[in-house]
């Protein structure tokens, strides 16, 4: 049985590896691992000037974490703490809108979930400590995860996959203020911040604020890949 082919959008960053210091398409290997451990075959899509024709070659798509969403996309000026990549935003929004239109199964992680909210007409808190008064969602200054519970709405896809509540890792300083036309389905009980969103009208449009790829819980990857498999098999020509 051939595996569904899952596209993952990469970062585009100045990167150092070995003796090389260059502008590179780069993605934490944990995303690739999450897809491969969950029954998919990962291929990576770069956020330069993408051609949406590529969506016809994949069965599902993952929008990964990374830098902040440019607040000009929802009509605000950038917070001093913002680190934005406007080119990546533009490329990923183009791909996300085409993927939504094609009803391609979409899984958004952290930045990917926030981008999904913007694509659906929502907007973001630019710096959660200003809103919540705490570092609860990004406790350390460096790349170190925090941890907190998330509760899910009865009847949501997230609750069906993960149960009523899970403990998640957390590393973000932006957050969804308004999910637009997406349905919020998961919250941090401590402060009410939106942690998961879905579009129930689509086959699989699901975003989470945390980082399942950097955990051992790949159930959301598996559910996304199953949706991709089902869509591929529906579209396969009758022999």
């Amino acid at each position, binding site marked *: 049985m051939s595996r569904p082919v899952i596209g993952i959008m990469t970062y585009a960053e100045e990167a150092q590896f070995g003796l090389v210091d260059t*502008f590179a398409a*780069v993605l934490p290997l944990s995303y690739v691992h999450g897809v491969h451990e969950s029954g998919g075959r990962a291929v990576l899509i770069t956020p330069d000037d993408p051609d949406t024709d590529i969506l016809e070659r994949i069965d599902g798509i993952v929008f990964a974490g990374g830098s902040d969403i440019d607040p000009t996309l929802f009509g605000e000026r950038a917070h001093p703490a913002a680190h934005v990549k406007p080119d990546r935003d533009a490329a990923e929004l183009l791909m996300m809108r085409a993927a939504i239109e094609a009803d391609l199964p979409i899984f958004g992680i952290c930045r990917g979930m926030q981008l999904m909210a913007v694509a659906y007409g929502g907007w973001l808190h630019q710096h959660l400590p200003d809103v919540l008064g705490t570092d609860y969602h990004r406790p350390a200054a460096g790349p170190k995860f925090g941890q907190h519970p998330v509760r899910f709405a009865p009847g949501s896809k997230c609750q069906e996959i993960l149960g009523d509540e899970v403990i998640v890792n957390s590393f973000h300083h932006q957050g969804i203020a308004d999910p637009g036309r997406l349905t919020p389905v998961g919250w941090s009980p401590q402060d009410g911040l939106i942690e998961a969103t879905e579009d129930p009208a689509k086959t699989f449009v699901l975003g989470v604020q945390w980082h399942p790829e950097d955990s051992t819980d790949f159930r959301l990857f598996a559910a996304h890949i199953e949706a991709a498999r089902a869509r591929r098999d529906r579209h396969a020509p009758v022999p």
Partner: protein
Amino acid sequence: MTPVIGISCYVERARWGPWDRSAALIPYTYVNVVAAAGACPILLPPGGGQASTVIDRLDGLVLAGGADVGPDLYAAQPHAETVTRPDRDANEMALLRAALAVDLPVLGVCRGMQLLAVAYGGALDQHLPESVGHPGHLPEPGVFGAHPATFAPGSRVAAIFGPVSEVNSYHHQSIADPGRLAVTGWAGDGVIEAVEDPAMRFVLGVQWHPEEAADVRPFAALVAAAGAPAGAAARARRAVAG
């Protein structure tokens, strides 16, 4: 529809922004030349198997540069200077074999060219400075060399670059035995600089780095071959894939 060209990618510990971690990555020079050649690039990380599933979705394959090919693949003991990436070897060898099985166009760059030679039954020279007696193919770590390459009349590589071309150079291994591939390019010291399989739609390997020179020509030739009428196997494959 825009052709889609797969590029095999590196897996290395990398640093970017606040991160220092294991990553799938590729220098953007590869992405840019494939896009400039009129195709959509898509990166193919190791792991997950399913080479033919991936090849079914592509119009062409670029085997990128990087670390040394594992000497176990051509039944040799590793040299002290040989640094390998077995995960890349396994992924790229499987992708290459699946591509050749359906006559999908393939371009091998540096390591990718050496992998082509090994797949065609050849073998590598594991540390070139010991064989040619000079460091000209990799002058010092992190610094590209440059030298002329001469190409065989009537070859695919000569059709792209002309009879002679100045090329950049950054490798310490080279092809010792091209196996069943035709050798179609040489440096002045006799080092093999280009190989091809004239029986296939497009199978070309170059020892240098056209992507670093932003030389779109070999990538454009790959894309042109990808758009050319496919062989019977590829047509059947497309019909099944819908």
